[in-house]
């Protein structure tokens, strides 16, 4: 197999709200821009585009927004590469990717990482059964593909994204069996909307959506177990007690469930920024490990590397668009183009306001990492390698002193997801058992390849590296 190569002044990783805004801004400033994304259509998770123009989601505002942002990029002359996944990046920058089944190498002067977020899963008993999926997966099935997660669905977890998923069910005319939210909320929402009244209308719309699904509402409840043989059949819920823990003695089962869509929030996708050695910090409120970026330029600690959107901390589409635009202008300036200082100052003020709202919401729905303690000893922690909680604890008791040591002795995190799915809960378990902070428990360092890639494609991409000699 041979591969192709491309060059540009500014390379943008990710074509979601942040990436598309960054690409458009850099292009407007005169830079020559490539923007790539893993998915077949630009828009990201927020502005995800339906497969068919006849979809009832075509008119939904997020979809329209994503469509307009992508159209704007194309009109400006941004080169959009879809179904393209980066498997390695070198400073300077040289990026190794696969595009479909082909190898691709991109050389770029400046680079913006807007690789978005992924779910921050909390393992619970039965979470590996077919029919149990992340809330985001359900959203994508319905919105982008017109497929139902199931015929009898429970939506559960915590956080504002669950409202959005319920609204998606409503817009698709689908029913929900139950809606399970860890938090009680009520009057705690009020002060946030007093400070950000413009967000009230959107919130009211989402609540109407939830009501339209006909779901029974279970506030201050959590899913403690998914039940079934070869696939999901029932879901066990428990109310949250005064100590913040599920009360098993008062648990009950919802039978006849074939799909459980569950989400407790998101974590930044930081594989490219960490492979390039940018500074990262652990911040529970912003989703855990995030890439540090200058709010006025999007610049990271690595020269020529910028980060925007969820990669820099979970905040949703608003901060993503604004930080994307800022990073686009920053990278264009890095490539020698002139950026407008007045616009940057205005964007930075808007970004601070949008981040304030996002953090206010995040405080109302703090990530309940402690729920990993509810996993039974035989419960699966690492899905890829079938590693149980008991396996992990035995390794710690044998002298494994951090997450990496546990990984070596149990294979937790050694499977194809490269530790992305179990990483944060493994760190949580280790931290709780050893008595250190989650940040100290360690994280998965990225290595080549950042995502599994066929040898033929990796070989072809790497063969284009200079001179054929070993560094």
């Amino acid at each position, binding site marked *: 197999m041979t591969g192709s190569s491309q060059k540009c002044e500014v390379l943008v990783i990710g074509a979601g709200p942040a990436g598309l805004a960054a690409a458009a801004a850099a292009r407007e400033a005169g830079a020559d821009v490539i923007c790539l994304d893993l998915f077949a259509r630009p828009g990201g998770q927020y502005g995800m585009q339906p497969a068919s123009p006849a979809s009832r989601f075509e008119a939904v505002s997020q979809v329209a927004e994503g469509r307009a942002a992508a159209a704007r990029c194309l009109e400006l002359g941004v080169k959009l590469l879809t179904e393209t996944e980066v498997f390695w990046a070198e400073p300077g920058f040289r990026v190794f990717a696969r595009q479909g089944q082909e190898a691709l190498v991109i050389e770029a002067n400046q680079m913006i990482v807007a690789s978005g977020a992924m779910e921050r899963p909390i393992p619970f008993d039965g979470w590996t059964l077919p029919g149990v999926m992340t809330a985001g997966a359900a959203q994508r099935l319905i919105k982008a593909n017109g497929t139902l997660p199931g015929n009898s669905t429970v939506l559960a977890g915590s956080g504002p994204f669950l409202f959005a998923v319920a609204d998606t069910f409503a817009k698709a005319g689908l029913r929900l069996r139950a809606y399970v939210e860890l938090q009680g909320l009520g009057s705690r929402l009020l002060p946030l909307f007093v400070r950000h009244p413009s967000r009230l209308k959107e919130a009211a719309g989402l609540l109407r959506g939830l009501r339209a699904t006909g779901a029974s509402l279970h506030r201050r409840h959590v899913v403690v177990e998914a039940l079934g043989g070869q696939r999901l059949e029932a879901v066990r819920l428990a109310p949250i007690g005064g100590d913040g823990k599920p009360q098993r003695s008062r648990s009950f089962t919802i039978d006849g469930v074939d799909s459980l869509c569950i989400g407790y929030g998101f974590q930044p996708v930081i594989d490219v920024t960490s492979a390039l050695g940018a500074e990262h910090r652990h911040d529970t409120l912003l989703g855990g490990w995030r890439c540090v970026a200058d709010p006025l330029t999007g610049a990271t600690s690595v020269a020529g590397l910028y980060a925007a959107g969820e990669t820099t901390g979970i905040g949703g589409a608003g901060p993503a668009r604004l930080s994307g635009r800022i990073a686009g202008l920053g990278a264009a300036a890095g490539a020698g183009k002139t950026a407008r200082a007045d616009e940057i100052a205005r964007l930075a003020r808007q970004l601070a306001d949008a981040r304030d709202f996002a953090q206010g919401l995040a405080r109302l729905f703090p990530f309940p990492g402690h729920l990993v303690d509810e996993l039974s000893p035989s419960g699966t922690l690492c899905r890829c390698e079938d590693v149980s909680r008991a396996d992990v604890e035995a390794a710690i008791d044998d002298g*494994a002193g951090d997450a990496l040591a546990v990984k070596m002795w149990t294979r937790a995190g050694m499977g194809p997801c490269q530790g992305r799915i179990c990483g944060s809960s493994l760190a949580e378990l280790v931290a709780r058992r050893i008595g250190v902070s989650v940040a100290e428990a360690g994280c998965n360092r990225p290595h080549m390849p950042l995502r599994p890639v066929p040898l033929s494609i990796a070989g072809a991409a*790497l063969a284009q590296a200079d001179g054929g000699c070993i560094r």
Partner: protein
Amino acid sequence: MPRTADAVVVGGGIVGTAIARQLARDGVDAVLVERKAFGGAVSGASLACLGTHMHSLDELEVLVESCALWRSISDELGDPFEYNRCGQLRFILREEDLPVAQRWIDGERAFGLDPELLSPEAVRDKEPLLTGPIVAASHSPGDATVNPFLAVRALLRDGGNAGLKAFANTAVTGLQMDGDRVAGVQTERGSIATGNVILAAGPWSGQLARHADLDLPLVPRQAQCVASVRQPPSIRTVVGACESAGGVESGYTQIQQAASGQILFNTVTAPAATRPGAEDRINEAPIGFVRDSIRTLTMLFPSLSEILMLRSWVRFEAVTPDDRFLAGRLPRRGLIAAAGDNGTGFCRAPVLGRLISRIVRGEAAMPADTLYAPSRFAELRA
């Protein structure tokens, strides 16, 4: 953390762990300190092949004993580390390299071992997917592999049952000397007074010895490895490169499939040593290496060209001038070296455990003593 010990082993890789376990089993009050995670540096990053083939004719007695020890440890502990006596193949790509292979085979057969030279067809009986353009391969049926992580864990656990005290995330910051004798070690978590300190810290052993004003003839050498996503059973043996007539060309190749199903393939990029201190900043695998490793694997096993690559990593082996371990007394009383794996630490670890335990307990010498004695180097004579 204890304040005193009979012996402190510095370095929780396979060599340090094997020594610490043996000491504890022999009744020595031993402490093992590891800077980071047990087996987390060189050992965990290696492919842990145990064998007698194409290692060193001078060391065959040690290698045979070590292989037997590994097997008995596996039996005694109930197979906790995936011991697999899978045999080893060394492929030959050029006719002119056949005499080199034959010399190894003759030397090992003279010692009573049973390696043989196989035709490409006979190789495929043993390794059906090895359909690449080889002219022959040598085969050594007794060679084996272990899971490097689990081997360290099992030895540590067994040592613990015998009274070994082991501490991860405990870096040694200095050696306490009393004139020319060692008096203790300083760690991040406090000092331990002891009359015996064993430096088993692989490529970092040299830095530790400098606390006693000693220069060990050890240099780091970068090696790296690539792993695939779990595959159905595909590769049965350990497949390595035969040393070529002109010496090792671009380092060695080793390909095997772990019990997990992952295919592992590694190469040492260059026969030359890396600059001193390189081991302190472990980089990513160079892309040229990954590219060449993929080429070698798919040249030998064309049907594996579409499997998914999962991970690559780098390790630093500790290399000595004569490719033999540095194991034995150093010219400071109570200071003992056990480093210089030259990429084959697993092979020799159990024997080194016995050797060092005898030295600490003042027992009579064994054959490995003369082979590995640091005093073979002029600068390490008392």
